[in-house]
């Protein structure tokens, strides 16, 4: 089975190549290639990946818990001195979850795209890009080493750029693509620096390596030595993750990225690519676990982002923007989860979020499709009459994100909140503050999502005349994916029912070989503060964890079950209380939304009139874009225009180049006297040369 690993990423690559070739072949023709062929190739490729991934998953389930690692080395890539990097795929429990999520949601969205993109001239190009994205994303999650992960990381960035600017003839959409790319570059720069830091650190402590298994072993062997490195590399890598996963302060590209086709928003900007940062931190959990500082930064930034994005979401008029801010907010939850050491909880939320957010996006896409591109929610309303299936699935997903039991969002979000509450971050008040912040954010989330639901599907019809004429339920190729994702939104949570509710938390158990040890180390390190003994104990624990094998998994399993049981300062009663609280605040948010947009539609307006300043601030997204423009973009322009161009380029660089030119001309003026244009003169020079040689030989 291991030998089939390569098929998972390469099958979409082949699809991308074929579709891309077709797109190029037809680029000068009026009509594109037949959509049936394109969609068959485009959907068969990820479907094949999904099937293979499923087979590998089944195989993995059958394996011993500790042995659940599959590897395949394809060929050496960079082979230079101490730096040996192979193109190799590596699948453990964590990667497996990611692969399954990516291929499953990806395949569903591919099918959905057939309906959404129908009759678009760039159909073949679209599927080519989408398949290429699948390849890059799967490389990212399956790569065995950091450089390969980075390749996938850049690959998804590229595809994101291509797909945001898919309708490139619209200058704003093209600009949105560029914005996404440039903001990502900033993060990627830090990410690269992080990779270098890690590599240099490994060079200093034995063999230089960037392979995850080797790296984890090395870190476990020298925990003290890697503490500082963990902080530096962790924060640098986290800045990269901020860019990719749209966290403060690099989140600004994601709302603009909604310019792309809606399935793209669902796949790339909600379900998969933006979660790459979370995956990366989980993948490097062994490193992050050593640094309370880095973890604290991650958790704090995550929590702040969660609240901040949620508040912006309240006032947005564009349905996709609402969902975009919601995505940023939910990503904040995930980062907070991994920041407090609850890696499996973060990944769990990643998975459930993939389902319900994809469902929400696709539902929004269905609405937009039906209304011929209308995205303003205040021009919708009452659509549930026309689009029953869409409305139903959207509603289910909304309940899921609002955290209403027993839907998926409830379990995952509640686990994050509980882990945060019980975490041992220092200073001691931090977990409480984070909990409160995200608790409020949860309520706001419920409010704005249901605001969207009510504005779109219920209440008075506010359709424009043109939209009214076209409104219809989407074709089954679009609704069936919606139903599948809705089912996923309902059921995905049951994989991780906490023990307090009588579940077995199977998800945790599955992930524990991959991240369990790191979770344990986190608690040990953070709980112990900074004392020397504590670090020693932590190191011991880490070593023990690194020793691997059955011992490890049973050990961490115990620890985790303890954690689940609330041994870290919590109790069953408290856990249930918090659960009830979060459900209540979610329901409260829903009710407020209902009160404001169904029962009393004039209320929002009067509120916004009364608090005009605050409303404008939130409606204008806190004017972050404008602030960036004034503080960063304009000085940058100024610097490049006035300094780099006018002084350095014109004077220094051009001066050097022109100087060479003048010099060459000077030589030329002298040498041209030799060039008479008469061939025989040249022959004479050759003869003279030969004569000189002969003279040397004779003399």
């Amino acid at each position, binding site marked *: 089975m291991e030998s089939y690993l390569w098929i998972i990423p390469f099958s979409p690559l082949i699809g991308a190549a074929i579709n891309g070739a077709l797109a190029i072949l037809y680029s000068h023709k009026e009509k594109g290639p037949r959509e049936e062929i394109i969609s068959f190739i485009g959907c068969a490729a990820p479907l094949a990946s999904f099937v293979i991934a499923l087979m590998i998953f089944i195989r993995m389930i059958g394996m011993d818990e500790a042995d659940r690692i599959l590897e395949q080395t394809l060929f050496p890539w960079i082979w230079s001195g101490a730096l040996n990097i192979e193109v190799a795929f590596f699948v453990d429990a964590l990667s497996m979850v990611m692969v399954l999520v990516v291929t499953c949601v990806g395949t569903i969205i591919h099918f959905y795209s057939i309906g959404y993109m129908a009759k678009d001239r760039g159909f073949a190009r679209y599927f080519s890009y989408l398949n290429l994205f699948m390849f890059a994303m799967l490389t990212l999650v399956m790569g065995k080493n950091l450089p390969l992960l980075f390749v996938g990381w850049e690959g998804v960035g590229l595809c994101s750029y291509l797909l945001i600017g898919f309708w490139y003839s619209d200058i704003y959409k093209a600009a949105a693509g560029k914005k996404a790319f440039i903001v990502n570059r900033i993060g990627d720069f830090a990410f690269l620096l992080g990779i270098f830091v890690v590599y240099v650190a490994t060079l200093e402590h034995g063999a230089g390596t960037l392979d995850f298994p080797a790296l984890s072993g090395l870190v476990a062997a020298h925990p003290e030595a890697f503490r500082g490195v963990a902080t530096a590399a962790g924060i640098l890598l986290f800045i990269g993750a901020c860019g990719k996963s749209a966290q403060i302060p690099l989140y600004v590209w994601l709302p603009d990225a909604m310019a792309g086709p809606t399935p793209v928003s669902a796949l790339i900007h909600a379900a998969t690519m933006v979660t790459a940062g979370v995956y990366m931190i989980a993948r490097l959990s062994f490193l992050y676990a050593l640094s309370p500082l880095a973890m604290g930064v991650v958790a704090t930034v995550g929590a702040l982002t969660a609240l901040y994005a949620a508040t912006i979401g309240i006032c947005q008029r564009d349905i996709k923007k609402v969902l975009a801010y919601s995505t940023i907010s939910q990503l904040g939850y995930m980062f907070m989860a991994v920041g407090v050491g609850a890696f499996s909880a973060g990944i769990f939320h990643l998975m459930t979020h993939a389902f319900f957010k994809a469902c929400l996006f696709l539902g929004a896409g269905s609405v937009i499709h039906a209304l011929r591109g209308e995205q303003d929610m205040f021009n919708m309303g009452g659509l549930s009459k026309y689009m029953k299936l869409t409305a139903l699935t959207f509603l289910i997903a909304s309940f899921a994100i609002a955290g209403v039991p027993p839907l998926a969002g409830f379990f995952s979000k509640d686990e994050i909140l509980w882990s945060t509450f019980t975490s041992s971050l220092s200073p001691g008040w931090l977990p409480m503050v984070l909990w409160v912040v995200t608790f409020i954010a949860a309520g706001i989330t419920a409010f704005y999502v249901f605001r969207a639901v009510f504005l779109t599907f219920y209440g008075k019809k506010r359709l424009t005349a043109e939209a009214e004429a076209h409104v219809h339920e989407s074709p089954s190729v679009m609704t069936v994916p919606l139903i599948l994702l809705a089912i996923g939104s309902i059921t995905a949570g049951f994989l991780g029912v906490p023990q307090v509710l009588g579940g077995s938390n199977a998800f945790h158990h599955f992930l524990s070989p991959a991240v369990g040890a790191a979770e344990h180390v986190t608690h040990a390190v953070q709980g112990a503060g900074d004392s020397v003994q504590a670090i020693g104990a932590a190191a011991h624990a880490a070593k023990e964890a690194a020793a691997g094998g059955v011992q490890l998994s049973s050990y961490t399993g115990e620890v985790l079950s303890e954690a689940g049981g609330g041994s870290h300062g919590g109790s069953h009663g408290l856990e249930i209380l918090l659960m009830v609280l979060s459900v209540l605040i979610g329901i409260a948010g829903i009710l407020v939304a209902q009160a404001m947009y169904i029962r009393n539609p004039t209320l929002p307006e009067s509120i916004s009139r009364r608090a005009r300043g605050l409303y404008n601030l939130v409606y204008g997204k806190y004017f972050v874009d404008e602030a960036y423009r004034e503080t960063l973009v304009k000085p940058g322009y100024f610097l490049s225009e006035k300094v780099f161009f006018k002084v350095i380029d014109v004077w220094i660089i051009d001066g050097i180049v022109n100087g060479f030119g003048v010099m060459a001309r000077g030589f030329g003026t002298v040498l041209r006297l030799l*060039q*008479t*244009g*008469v*061939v*025989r003169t040249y022959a*004479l020079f050759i*003869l003279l040369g030969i004569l000189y040689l002969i003279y040397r030989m004779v003399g």
Partner: protein
Amino acid sequence: MITLDHYLYLSAILFFIGVFGVLFRRNLIVILMSIELMLNAVNLSFIAFSRYTASMDGHVFAFFVMAVAAAEAGIGLAILVMLFRNRRTVQADDLTLMRD
């Protein structure tokens, strides 16, 4: 008794006659023929050395030289014909476009 030197002297004389032709004459056809003569002189050296070292590698080289000479003659004469068609001259000194 004819020694290797005799052949080599003959080769040198022929070669420099060719050199002289290239330098002295202005008619491109004659220059081309002089180059052929020089190639032949070299061939003679090859063959002579081949005989006096009892190895046939020189023959192979002479063969290659002939092939190259044939290619050179073909191309050179074709260029010459083109030149004459366009410029109505075959005088080397009239063709100084390389300078301008």
